[in-house]
């Protein structure tokens, strides 16, 4: 009697155990099993996406009583808001697993086991319709990520891993306090999302809940000021894990804002919208401005993520359909664009031996394929028309300017993003080797074919959805519409 979503969980668990068990005997087969399982999961989520009726309600709903006395039940389901994120999770995990096959060489079985457990947590966050179930998956993400950064990361990995876990743990327990307040506000007491969505909550209580859940989501998103764990974690994590960190983990924050803030206590959320919009603008410009000054390619991409997630926050709190749908679409687009760039930074690191923008040069001649992909990724991150992030950023602009005219200033941000990406392209790809001032001896050679293929797969949805955005928007918009109707 279990549905497709539960089957996905079971398959991931089987995959984790199997790839670890087999991987201990033979690393190659272990890797292949793990990658195979991620492909199976991606196919399943595609099936989920295709077979989902275009409608405004939750589908593939499963409701199993778990701990009724404290209102905890196993309820999962997807709608147009979570579906793009489920797709992003399985898609990015698949490509991260493909990319890891060449980049990870030590303690391989543990790595792939943890990767699958991470996928379990991420997937669970986006499909849970019970706040405690949501929280459980939210916390499950924490431990594998901690170990993945800490064991396989760069030179400063221990510091980055501890910083990551402390920041997010503090944020998430405060969020739990907010959930408990929601539990007490509901009659009968419950953590079930669908019941809470119909519950009227007193205003002062809403305020407390908003403040506490903000702590959890804002750290994950992250908003400027609470972001300091992000550059460290992203830079130190191995490239495939950075892909998931930026591509999916940050979306947990954006998803939380939409799913919890807007759905459960919309009045107060929209009342405070100017505050959130201000924060979003700060995040957008802060991310872009700081990215401009970076020397480490990966750090620059990490800060681009902060900029992009600011757009998500901006779109979410516009309170209109265009902005909100744009925010959801932006999460998917950012996952693809930044996933491409992070994986590519891993390829560059792996094959050129450095990620320092000042040292890299003349990639056009030495690594033509990599260069082409980097230019493509940069264009996608800038939001070039006919690439998908253009559509979502445009929608967010329209929504934001409609709701708050002062938000029009945000149209300047892509200018900064374009500036630093073009400058970077000029330096690392076009600059001839003689012009590099730093003494260096680096041997760059083209990446392996499997690496480049893994990166190139990211380009497919970026182009496809850039030309036919309706493919994705037709699932997103009805759900956003229903969400906004309740306000």
């Amino acid at each position, binding site marked *: 009697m279990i549905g497709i979503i539960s089957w996905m969980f079971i398959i991931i668990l089987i995959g984790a155990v199997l790839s670890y068990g087999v991987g201990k005997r033979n690393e190659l087969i272990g890797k292949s099993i793990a990658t195979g399982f991620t492909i199976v999961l991606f196919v399943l989520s595609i099936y989920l996406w295709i077979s989902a009726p275009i409608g405004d309600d939750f589908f593939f709903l499963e409701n199993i*009583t*778990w*701990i*009724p*006395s*404290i209102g*905890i039940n196993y309820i999962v389901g997807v709608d147009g808001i979570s579906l793009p994120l489920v797709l992003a999770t399985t898609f990015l995990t698949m490509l991260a697993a493909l990319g890891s096959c060449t980049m990870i060489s030590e303690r391989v079985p543990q790595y792939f086991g943890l990767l699958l457990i991470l996928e379990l947590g991420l997937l669970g966050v986006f499909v849970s319709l019970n706040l*405690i179930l949501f*929280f*459980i998956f939210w*916390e*499950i993400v*924490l*431990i594998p990520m*901690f*170990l993945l950064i*800490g*064991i396989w990361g760069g030179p400063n*990995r*221990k510091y980055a*891993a*501890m910083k990551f*876990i*402390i920041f997010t*743990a*503090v944020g*998430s*327990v*405060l969020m*739990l*306090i907010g959930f*408990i*307040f929601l*539990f*007490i506000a509901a009659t009968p007491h419950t953590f079930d999302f669908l019941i809470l969505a119909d519950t009227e909550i007193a205003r002062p209580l809403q305020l407390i809940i908003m403040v506490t859940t903000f702590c959890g989501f804002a750290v994950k998103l992250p908003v400027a000021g609470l972001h300091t764990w992000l550059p460290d974690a992203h830079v130190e994590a191995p490239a495939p894990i950075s892909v998931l960190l930026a591509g999916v983990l940050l979306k947990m924050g954006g998803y939380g804002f939409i799913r919890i803030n807007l759905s459960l206590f919309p009045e107060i959320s929209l009342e405070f919208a100017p505050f959130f919009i201000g924060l979003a603008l700060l995040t957008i410009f802060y991310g872009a401005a700081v990215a401009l000054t970076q020397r480490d390619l990966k750090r620059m991409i990490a800060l681009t993520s902060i900029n992009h997630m600011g757009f998500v926050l901006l779109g979410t709190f516009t309170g209109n359909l265009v902005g909100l749908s744009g925010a959801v679409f932006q999460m998917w687009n950012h996952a693809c664009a930044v996933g491409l760039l992070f994986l590519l930074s891993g390829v560059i690191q792996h094959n050129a031996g450095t990620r320092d923008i000042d040292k890299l040069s003349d990639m056009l001649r030495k690594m033509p394929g990599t260069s082409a992909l980097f230019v493509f990724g940069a264009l996608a991150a800038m939001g070039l028309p006919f690439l998908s992030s253009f559509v979502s950023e445009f929608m967010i602009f329209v929504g934001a300017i409609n709701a708050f005219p002062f938000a029009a200033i945000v149209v300047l941000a892509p200018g900064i993003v374009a500036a630093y990406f073009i400058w970077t392209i000029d330096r690392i790809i076009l600059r001839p080797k003689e012009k590099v001032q730093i003494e260096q001896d680096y041997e760059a050679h083209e990446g392996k074919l499997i690496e480049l293929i893994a990166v190139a797969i990211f380009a497919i949805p970026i182009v496809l959805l850039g030309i036919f955005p309706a493919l994705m928007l037709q699932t997103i918009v009805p759900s956003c519409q229903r969400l906004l109707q309740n306000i």
Partner: protein
Amino acid sequence: MQLELLSLELVPFLPIYTLAMFSIATPAINRIGIRILKREVSAGWCVFNLLFAFAMTILVMPEYFGTPTLIGNVLKIDLFSLFFTLIFLLVALFISVASLRYMHDNPNQEIYYTMLPLSTLGMILVAFSVDLVILYIAWELMAIPTYVLVCIRKDDPLSNEAAMKYFIFGAISSAILMYAISLIYGVAGTTRILAITEFLSTTVNPFAYISLIMFVVGFGIKIAAVPFHIWAPDTYEGAPTPVSGLLAAGSKKAGFAAIIRVIIIGMPVLRVDWGFGFVILAVVTMTYGNIAALMQKSFTRLLAYSSIAQVGYILIGFATATSLGISGALYHILNHAILKSAAFVAATGVIMKLKSSELESFNGLSKQMPITAFTLTIVLLGLAGIPPTNGFFSKLILFTAAIDAGLIFLAVAGVLNSAFSLSYYAWIIKRMYIDESKDEFSEITEPLSCVFVLITASILIVTIGLFSATILDFIAAIIQTL
């Protein structure tokens, strides 16, 4: 008629009865065993004894759903006492199995294996007693064998110092309790808790307050609530590691059982007073425990402080004094007993093999002792309250109860402490999995007895978490019959 009464009174007693008889018989059994089997048999006998009592308790349990039985007005067999009996026996089983290897070369083995079940019997009787005199006797039966256990390594000065400290504080605790009991007897003219409750509901007497404070201090020393905790870290560090486990996971929980019986159920009239006291104790205890734990360099000391912090969480439940709070506290008592005994068992294994309890020696443990490292990770996550382990669910109920009772700052302090504690638990996981060990890589055969206990405990930790509904139903039944 006489015979019928006798049988009625004997049947409920059976687990306790066999535990007492079998324990006392241990030295004799050991002597006979050495003749026949040419080896120490006290350990096996102890495990059998505890297992037998455990099985018996489970067998008699269905009879007491809904109908508590009073024996001579001094002992009450209800689900509450049976719940604690199961906890104590489980902890004692864990500890005795884990000690098999640890105590193997100790010349005082038979004393060890006699004292262990006797102390367990004392804990069980504490949970059963509804009369203060019996409670006191049970309290001493629990405490005196542990004094022996702590200094079982006679030639180790650290162990002796620990025993001295523990004995002095234990004696103070008992003395204060005695004083409290005499005061309340002087006020109410009875030592039966039920009668005291009735008396207090009609009369206000200042001596009742003094007695209440003394009860809190007396029990507080045993559960190591701050500021009555000073004996705990030194004792846990100096005592043989399995015995520290017994103290942290076993006798501490007996203190909680006594608090529930005497203060929470026994003195509902003074609710406002002790409620406020527990609020302060809870905040101070968990904050102090966590901050101190962060600064430790030795794993056993860290566990001691972490155990102090966990006492703080349990006290949250007492502070609310609602049925939700008490059920959270009972649930956390169960979880903490399993988690802490497992953590000390892991420490036993590491100390046995690496001859050091310094946190440094945990570096790279995942390569040297993979099973211990993995199960210890689960245990530490449980202590930190990361889902889906059992520790998460009990903490969730405790914090929910605190908010429900209007003690919002207590819940906030609790969750912040909980997040804060993750930093030192994650630090150990970091040492085991991320750091490299200083020494050359060497394969170590992990002690089988410890590994067995750790795997059992890990399975329990996860299954109890997943089947919280069943446990919570049971705890609801306990509270109804309390």
